[in-house]
């Protein structure tokens, strides 16, 4: 939409595939949110599950440098340098990544919680809370007790959340998201799907998202 156009009014549906343990997903989320502010029109967002490392144990002993050094066979100094780079980029969008205290874990239960939150109208809040907890607070996001506490912090019923997690109520929903991602050919996250037909991969600049939102909104309005 050009500057002299009317404010867009058609709702743009955006499906976002992402993981919790994904630094570019949080950075991309901030850039997308900035784009939505600039866009000004209604945008409906739905998050979908994507596990980057499903084999990660729930409880990993060691810090970020340990994990990456062992997992990737990289020198610790090189890993530290890369973490510093990512943290620097995150800070540019207002995020305070704390890799020193980050706790590695398997994220499938966090994804189940996101589906529970979606079923209860709190998915957006839950997504933000999980990313903030993982990257900025050093909180564990793989264990049921920790996830239940986070669920409570966004206004979800803790006992209901516990029941959902302990029974795997939403595991099939997680797997369905993953199957959909595979069918779509999504290999990396974050991945944004606009109006079911446009794909945007990665933590793009806000202006890129704005242009895409304006394009889709104009098409939806026709």
């Amino acid at each position: 939409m050009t500057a002299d156009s009317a404010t867009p009014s058609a709702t743009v549906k955006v499906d976002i595939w992402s993981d919790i343990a994904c630094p570019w997903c949080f950075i991309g989320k901030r850039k997308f949110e900035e784009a939505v502010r600039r866009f000004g029109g209604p945008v409906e967002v739905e998050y979908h599950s994507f596990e980057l490392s499903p084999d990660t144990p729930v409880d990993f002993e060691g810090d970020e440098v340990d994990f990456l050094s062992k997992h990737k066979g990289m020198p610790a100094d090189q890993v530290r340098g890369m973490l510093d780079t990512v943290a620097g980029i995150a800070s540019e969008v207002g995020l305070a990544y704390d890799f020193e205290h980050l706790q590695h874990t398997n994220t499938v239960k966090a994804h189940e919680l996101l589906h529970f939150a979606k079923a209860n109208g709190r998915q957006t809040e839950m997504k933000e809370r999980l990313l903030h907890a993982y990257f900025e607070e050093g909180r564990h996001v793989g264990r049921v007790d920790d996830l239940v506490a986070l669920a409570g912090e966004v206004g979800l019923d803790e006992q209901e959340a516990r029941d959902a997690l302990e029974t795997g109520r939403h595991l099939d929903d997680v797997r369905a998201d993953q199957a959909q991602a595979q069918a779509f050919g999504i290999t990396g996250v974050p991945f944004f799907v606009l109006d079911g037909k446009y794909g945007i991969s990665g933590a793009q600049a806000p202006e890129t998202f704005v242009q895409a939102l304006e394009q889709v909104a104009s098409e939806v309005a026709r």
Partner: protein
Amino acid sequence: MREPVGVEVDTPTTTFTMLGSPDAAACEGDSCLVVPPGIADTSVDRTSDDEPGRRGVSR
């Protein structure tokens, strides 16, 4: 990504029209460790117009 087990879902295979830069940072597989040569050293002098390539660390 793990193969779905025991889940029957509607999984349309839409081909998307891709928008944006193909080099935007993203995590693939179990990491996003790929750092293109010359990218990692540029963060200090980056401008708001710079968009990182595929680089960084996920886990």
